[in-house]
């Protein structure tokens, strides 16, 4: 393969036909550049959607209630629906095999006081499983545990920003703070990838909240993490079934979305999955279109340039060139141009993508980038196409009788 003399001939031929070499090089470089940018941007879109759903566990279901909008079984519309402990227990009893995590959530707004500092914060009274459902990250101490629930302990877990507000850089763990004049011990500090708002929350045991604030068994929401072994379709079905059952238990019209609704991540995942699949096919379509345009470009240039050189090939044959040596010369020339140009397009495309970085986030494009495998694959496709584009017409030209080739003008 490596024959210095042969390559010298090729370099000379390229050098003396710069325009031709540049045209075919440009075609290849441009095709690869477009391909890289396109793939990068679609990857950016995918990254954005993945990022958008990173906050909550991706197998979570969220049961929320409000007022009825449809009369049912003699009950008027406008009735306020209240979830209670029994509903959570029902889900656990009836569907334990489909549930991985479950937690109630009850909201409170309280004034927290520590020494001279005080501010209003929202409290979430929850079960221990809540940390998995919200993807809470424990920075210090621990989360609410079963013992806290059983003993109705007055303990809280505070968000990173709550700690910052009240304690600054000082130690918060083990300190006591007042929540509306009731003293609570801080047993943990957490952070959350969901952002600042999440980190201004405070968690306490659901049993404590129910005893101290209203002395009832009310809960505001139920969070469920469905068994990850469920397929997306079965998880969607599970959510729908649960919705029907709870509506029935609470005497709600089966179609009353306002009274009781379950937000099911399985459905969102299904939609995102469909969107990503659609994007993927668009990329395949447009990407292969770009490549085909590039291939046609090279083929045209090669066919034209070989036609132009028919006479030269005739002279070379009269001087003793074998057909193989002419084919090999043309193919190597085409190979050299396509690989160098393909590489340039690749480098330029990756460079532009890295320059874009996070700059297009407002257009739903986040961190656009390409896997090297795909782009190298595309480059190789073009190189092979360049080889064929050179080989086929060169083979034809090399088979022309030298006398015919010499007559060509």
């Amino acid at each position, binding site marked *: 393969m490596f024959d210095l003399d042969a390559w010298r001939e090729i370099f000379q031929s390229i050098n003396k036909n710069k325009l031709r070499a540049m045209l075919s090089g440009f075609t290849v470089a441009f095709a690869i550049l477009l391909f890289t940018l396109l793939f990068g941007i679609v990857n950016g879109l995918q990254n954005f959607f993945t990022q958008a759903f990173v906050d909550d566990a991706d197998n979570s279901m969220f049961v929320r209630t409000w007022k009825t909008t449809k009369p049912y079984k003699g009950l008027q519309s406008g009735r306020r629906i209240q979830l209670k402990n029994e509903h959570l227990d029902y889900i656990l009893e009836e569907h334990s095999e489909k549930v991985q995590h479950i937690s109630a959530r009850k909201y409170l707004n309280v004034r927290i006081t520590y020494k001279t500092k005080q501010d209003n914060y929202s409290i979430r009274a929850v079960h221990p499983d809540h940390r998995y459902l919200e993807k809470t990250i424990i920075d210090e101490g621990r989360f609410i545990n079963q013992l806290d629930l059983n003993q109705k302990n007055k303990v809280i877990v505070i968000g990173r920003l709550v700690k910052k507000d009240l304690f600054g850089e000082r130690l918060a763990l083990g300190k006591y703070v007042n929540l509306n004049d009731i003293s609570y011990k801080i047993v943990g500090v957490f952070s959350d990838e969901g952002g600042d708002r999440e980190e201004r929350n405070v968690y306490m045991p659901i049993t404590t909240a129910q005893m101290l604030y209203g002395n009832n068994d009310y809960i505001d929401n139920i969070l469920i993490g469905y068994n990850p072994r469920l397929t997306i379709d079965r998880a969607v079905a599970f959510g729908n079934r649960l919705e029907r059952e709870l509506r029935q238990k609470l005497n709600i019209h089966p179609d009353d979305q306002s009274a009781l609704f379950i937000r099911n991540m399985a459905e969102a995942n299904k939609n995102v999955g469909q969107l990503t699949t659609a994007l993927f096919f668009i990329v395949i379509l447009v990407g292969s279109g770009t490549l085909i345009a590039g291939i046609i470009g090279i083929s045209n240039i090669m066919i034209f340039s070989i036609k132009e050189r028919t006479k030269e090939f005739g002279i070379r044959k009269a*001087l003793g060139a*074998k057909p193989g040596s002419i084919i090999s010369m043309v193919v190597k020339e085409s190979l050299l141009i396509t690989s160098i140009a393909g590489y340039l397009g690749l480098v330029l495309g990756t460079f532009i993508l890295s320059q874009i970085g996070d700059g297009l986030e407002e257009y739903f494009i986040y961190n656009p980038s390409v896997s090297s495998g795909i782009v190298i694959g595309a480059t190789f496709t073009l190189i092979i196409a360049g080889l064929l584009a050179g080989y086929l017409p060169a083979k034809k030209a090399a088979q022309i009788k030298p006398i015919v080739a*010499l007559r060509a003008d």
Partner: protein
Amino acid sequence: MIRIEGLHKSYPIGKDSLHVLKGLDLHIKEGEFVSIMGSSGSGKSTLLNIVGLLDEHDVGNYYLNGQLIEKLNEKKAAVLRNKFLGFVFQSFNLISYKTAVENVALPLYYKGVGRKERLKTALEYLEKVELGPWAEHLPNELSGGQKQRVAIARALVTVPKVILADEPTGALDSTTTDSVMDLLKGINDEGMTVFVITHEEEVAEQTDRIVRLKDGVIISDELTESGKAKAKQYV
């Protein structure tokens, strides 16, 4: 060196075919200086193309250097051309993007000679045709006569058995014609077989033997004055 027996060649033209060579017999011995004369359409270029392995004959036998030429594929033909034949064309056929010395060196490249030796040999031959100082010039910087001398140097560089010249002076004025013919004569004097195709009487007369072709058949084959003189020397 070249022996042709009952050679026929026709070209298809649409549905018909044009019968160009109608049974030629010709024997050219080693060291001869022969010209083929004929008006255009007489078949002389076809004859040269067949002799030069640039084209194939239909019927008859052709022996080159004692070897029967038949069913040659392109690869074998290329090797034989490179080994036995040197071409000089009317339109020079130099490669436009190669310098004079690179053009002369090209047949050696296809022979597999190393680059240094190739360029050294090519330069020697360029000096032989008195174009040493023009070695690094491109063909379009040379005059017609100079181009043809480069082409002759290129034909000679592989030390072939036969030089085939197709109207070598067709594109040249009379002064340069003489210098090119002198060059060919000199080559012949060194013992190489030279085979010239021409339609110019003055050119043909400078060779040793004139074969006249008309409508695809040989109408005469005789020695010129110089040919007769040479023949006497050897007797």
